[in-house]
């Protein structure tokens, strides 16, 4: 099998200008991925800068209520508040080893942009973040965070002014400045070798879970649940378990405010569940598109899941039946957000709340088994404004 492909998915659908850069990235990555010095540097940053390893926490109140033993993989405790830094540290270090002076990235919610800005500041790389103009308004706090960290944030006014347009603009920048610049993609999307590189850097999540659950329970979980936007936290926790066929895996997409489509937009972001095979941002994958092949705008209450495509390897694993794609609505995610906060004293990111919601909905059916691990991909401090605006504030007098 062509190593850039996962079944029919993946590949490299980019302008010719970028093809040599993708080759260079692949070569350099395979040179450094097992290089002891690179590994030592990366481990140092992951431990002392990012705060790894993250705990696998037994959520006892949640477990009691849902009569299932539930563990949370605490990626919310990673510096910056989400799993995103695992990848940005890896890629920024790689950029440094490759002699690049400048990194660029796209961001939707601002989480990947923030994690990129942190890595860029620490490793002394000139950092530019592309963000859809609509998202700049929606996620003001993260814009400030990025700017305080010394990055420049460029509002993208083209197309739908959201994440997919930010990726287009980052690709355009990369096409122009390919000699000096590394494009630091934020999820397991884009042309080969990105889906592989991001998956590898995020796989630390699943590797840690494997050891931790063995220590605590003496066995692997019955199921693992993760939310999926582009799919990096999902691939990160799933990948080391793919060979363990008894472990079921659920990738929870954003069901948004309904499963309908118009000719321009979807009310959801469930590309694995409802999308059709297509080519977007350099890869063949499942995408939300209309009958003419135009990409639809997506929707989710959680900006980090609001994307019209999904990582090609996830699309492949879904087709083969190894993972189960599913979706929960904005409403269900909001309810899970509140319930989790009150039951466990942990405010989850709205993205991660989708994974929580799925467990809350399905636990009683027995489908998930007795021992469940949820990837708590991020913390929810960034989402308070969204939650309040959604009118879902429970109690309080503000």
């Amino acid at each position: 099998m062509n190593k850039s492909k996962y079944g029919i998915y993946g590949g490299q659908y980019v302008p010719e200008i970028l093809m040599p850069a993708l080759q260079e990235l692949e070569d350099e990555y395979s040179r450094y991925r097992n290089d002891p010095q690179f590994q030592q540097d990366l481990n140092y940053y992951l431990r002392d800068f990012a705060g790894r390893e993250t705990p696998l926490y037994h959520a006892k109140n949640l477990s009691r209520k849902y009569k299932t033993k539930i563990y949370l993989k605490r990626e919310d405790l990673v510096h910056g508040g989400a799993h995103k830094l695992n990848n940005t540290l890896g890629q920024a270090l790689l950029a440094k080893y490759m002699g690049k002076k400048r990194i660029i990235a796209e961001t939707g919610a601002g989480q990947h942009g923030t994690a990129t800005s942190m890595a860029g500041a620490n490793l002394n790389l000139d950092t530019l973040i592309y963000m859809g103009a609509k998202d700049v308004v929606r996620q003001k706090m993260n814009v400030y965070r990025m700017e305080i960290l010394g990055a420049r944030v460029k509002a993208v006014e083209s197309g739908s002014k959201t994440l997919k347009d930010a990726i287009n603009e980052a690709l355009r920048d990369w096409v122009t400045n390919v000699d000096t610049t590394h494009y630091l993609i934020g999820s397991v999307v884009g042309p080969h070798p990105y889906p592989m590189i991001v998956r590898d850097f995020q796989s630390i999540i699943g590797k840690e879970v494997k050891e931790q659950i063995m220590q605590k329970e003496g066995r692997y979980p019955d199921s693992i649940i993760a939310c999926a936007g582009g799919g990096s936290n999902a691939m990160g926790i799933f990948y080391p378990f793919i060979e363990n066929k008894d472990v079921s895996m659920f990738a929870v997409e954003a069901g948004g405010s309904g499963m309908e489509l118009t000719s321009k937009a979807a009310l959801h972001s469930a590309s694995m569940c409802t999308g059709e095979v297509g080519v977007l941002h350099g890869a063949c994958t499942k995408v939300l598109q209309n009958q003419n092949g135009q990409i639809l705008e997506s929707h989710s209450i959680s900006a980090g899941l609001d994307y019209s495509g999904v990582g090609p390897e996830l699309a492949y694993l879904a087709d083969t039946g190894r993972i189960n794609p599913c979706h929960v609505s904005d409403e269900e995610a909001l309810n899970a957000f509140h319930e989790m906060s009150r039951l466990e004293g942990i405010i989850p990111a709205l993205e991660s709340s989708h994974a929580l919601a799925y467990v809350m909905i399905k636990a009683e059916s027995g489908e998930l088994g007795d021992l469940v691990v949820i990837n708590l991909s991020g913390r929810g401090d960034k989402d308070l404004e969204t939650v309040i605006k959604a009118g879902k504030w429970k109690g309080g007098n503000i």
Partner: protein
Amino acid sequence: MRISDKFEELKSRNEGALISYICAGDPSTELTKSAVKALIKGGADIIELGLPFSDPCADGPVIQSATDRAISAGMTPERYFELVSTLQVDVPLVCMTYYNIIYKRGIKKFIEDCSSSGITGIIVPDLPVEESDELGLACAKNKVDLIFLVAPTTNENRLHKILDKSTGFLYMVSRTGVTGGSTDIGTDIADLLTGIKKCTDIPIAVGFGISNRNQVADIISYGAEGVIAGSAFVDIIASGKNVEHRLESLACDLKSGCRE
């Protein structure tokens, strides 16, 4: 008309080819029809007609906006082929679109539609040679040329792979970057051209950032068989003022650079 016949004809007249791009349906199919006529009247030898895609990552702001206008005005692949088949012109028509549009329609069907509507060549800026086998087969079967791009970053190894699969002409990208803006035509372009010409007999056309006669004259004097201009024409369409007349005079001006 086949692209190779056009280049033969121009060669016998010792002229370079003016290839002009506009986006179909921007801002209406009616305007596209009259714009194509104006471009040909001004001297365009080949018309490159964009079929708009929502996420044109190889295009700069001018063509992005044209794409948005065309999609908003209702341009679809179906209407595109209808439009093409009503254009009764005696120059080669080349389709420029992104791969998802082709993939969604079905590669075979898309190329058959090209062939039956009168498209004789196709350019897909996000389809590198490595991913092009299926499209290449369909093109060969239907006598549609598959036109590849080479860039300043393309190394010799890749150049040979691309030349192996190229038909019609080779699209040489003048600089790293997206469409539009302005390109300084300097010795690096001359060197690139010389390097490529050593390896092939296929006609070479240079594009990205071409908007005036001096650039054209320089490119042709460096040995290119043609130039491609797009954003400069699209700018005129976007202005909405005196469009046909200005398209014709710009085409005429650029074409004069092809004859120097």
